[in-house]
């Protein structure tokens, strides 16, 4: 069984992936929170305004104004989509980094190679979201292609780099499995059964299951109806505009806005419950690296779970309770960020203790 210091040495592949992965998740969550507060809601309102302007232009019989309104809808949707993608990909790559960190003892490659692959993975993990974020601003400027701009090309390159690094680790695992002589438990990290770890595993699993049950219920009861209603309402608005019935246009647009809200909160609740559950489970494995007092480790585990449950539940309640629920959901997100930051600081403290120990021993001998 490998020791703590050996598997978490300075700039080792595991340490790079753990600190880089939690860093990606933290930045991804902060980006998500800032975008939600300062960009996404305003952007959604502008999309609604532009759609309304297009419908009113259709009532007035002004086809040019319709085209101009939809041009701005497209721009707002692209702006929104790329920002959500930036948030989601940073967090997803952070999760993948943590998983690859746990799997390191099973990757039968030289430490130097594993370290290089970790740097390549982290490079791609930053390149993709940064590229995606810039798509809206760079557009097609100086692009050699007709539909894809430079930012998109670099984002795709980031994705390819991440795939190459993941394939590299996969080959290492396949190589490990072929070396049958070393199939015993390779890592002390998985032996940990601390209370904080158990809280995070049990809570994380429960969140994942809740997220799945909600997703299945939503898909069975609402998804197909809402898809049909989406197109039906747009047809209704277009037909009302064609026959110049302004009241019906307004009514249709109002219902369309409500429908968009319902879809958004259901998808957000489903995705966040599962993602936070997965995060809790992943963090459970790293609790031995969190250099905090046991009581604090348990407290931060509960804070993470409380925020992870609060966010999706209150996102769902936004339709009934309005902005109050939205505010509580944001507090839930903040709790998750705080708990994650505390654990990250705990891991950084641990790396400091680990790195200074040989120096202290050397000093003691001298």
């Amino acid at each position, binding site marked *: 069984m490998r020791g703590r210091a050996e598997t978490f040495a300075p700039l080792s592949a595991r340490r790079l992936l753990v600190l880089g992965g939690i860093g990606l998740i933290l930045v991804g969550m902060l980006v998500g929170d800032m975008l939600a507060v300062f960009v996404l809601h305003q952007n959604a309102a502008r999309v609604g305004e532009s759609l309304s302007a297009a419908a009113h232009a259709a009532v007035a019989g002004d086809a040019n104004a319709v085209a101009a309104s*939809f041009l701005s809808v497209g721009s707002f*949707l692209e702006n929104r989509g790329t920002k959500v993608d930036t948030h989601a990909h940073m967090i997803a790559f952070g999760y993948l980094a943590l998983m690859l960190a746990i799997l390191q003892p099973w990757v039968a490659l030289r430490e130097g190679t594993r370290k290089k692959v970790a740097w390549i993975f982290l490079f791609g993990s930053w390149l993709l979201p940064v590229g995606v974020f810039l798509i809206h601003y760079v557009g097609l400027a100086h692009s050699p292609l007709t539909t894809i701009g430079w930012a998109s090309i670099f984002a795709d390159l980031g994705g390819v780099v991440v795939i190459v690094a993941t394939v590299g680790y996969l080959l290492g695992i396949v190589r490990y499995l072929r070396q049958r002589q070393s199939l015993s438990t390779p890592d002390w990290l998985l032996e940990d059964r601390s209370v904080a770890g158990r809280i995070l595993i049990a809570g994380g699993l429960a969140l994942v299951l809740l997220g799945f049950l909600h997703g299945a219920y939503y898909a069975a009861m609402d998804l197909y109806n809402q898809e049909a209603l989406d197109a039906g309402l747009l047809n209704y608005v277009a037909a009302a*505009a064609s026959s110049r019935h302004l009241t019906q246009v307004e009514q249709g647009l109002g219902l369309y806005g409500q429908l968009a809200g319902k879809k958004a909160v259901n998808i957000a609740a489903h995705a966040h419950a*599962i993602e936070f559950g997965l995060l809790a489970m992943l963090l459970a494995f790293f609790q031995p690296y969190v250099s905090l007092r046991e009581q604090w480790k348990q407290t931060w585990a509960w804070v993470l779970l409380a925020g992870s449950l609060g966010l999706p539940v209150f996102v769902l309640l936004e339709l009934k309770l309005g902005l109050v629920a939205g505010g509580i959901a944001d507090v839930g997100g903040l709790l998750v960020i705080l708990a994650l930051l505390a654990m990250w600081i705990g891991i950084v403290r641990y790396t400091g203790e680990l790195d200074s120990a040989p120096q202290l021993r050397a000093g003691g001998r001298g």
Partner: protein
Amino acid sequence: MSGARRLLIIGGICLALLGMIYGVWYAVFAEHQELDGIGKSLTTGFSAAAQRDPSAADGALQQYYELKYNYDRHVDVHGHWIGLAMILIVLGIGLDRVSFGEQVKMLLAAALLVASFLFPLGVLLQTLSRGPVPPVLAVAGSVLVIASLAGMILGFARGQKP
């Protein structure tokens, strides 16, 4: 490494790779064109309404519905394959905390892996066929995911007891 753990970890990484490769392919060859088509069909529909041509508006909005239907599913497949892959890997890593015999663990692992592949595949096939097979595949896959996940949770709960 036990057979069930190996199945979950290797299967999970393969599924994550499948989801990523599919995502890159989709982003390069289909997504931009699909989004462009969604925008154009909406513009055409409302421009036709402005020109008092309800049948042209209806046709364009029907095209919007088809494109949006496919777009939502393409994005969902990418997200679900990778998301489920991550759950498989994490469960594989923590499998020694599941308090079941090796056979039951293997059964749960195999069910979870097959379901995690089939559920998004069913969603993807809905873009190619509107027949009953793709939705049945998606529903069966999702039910199997939930059932095997519930089994894993039961095993974890048994393992937590002192």
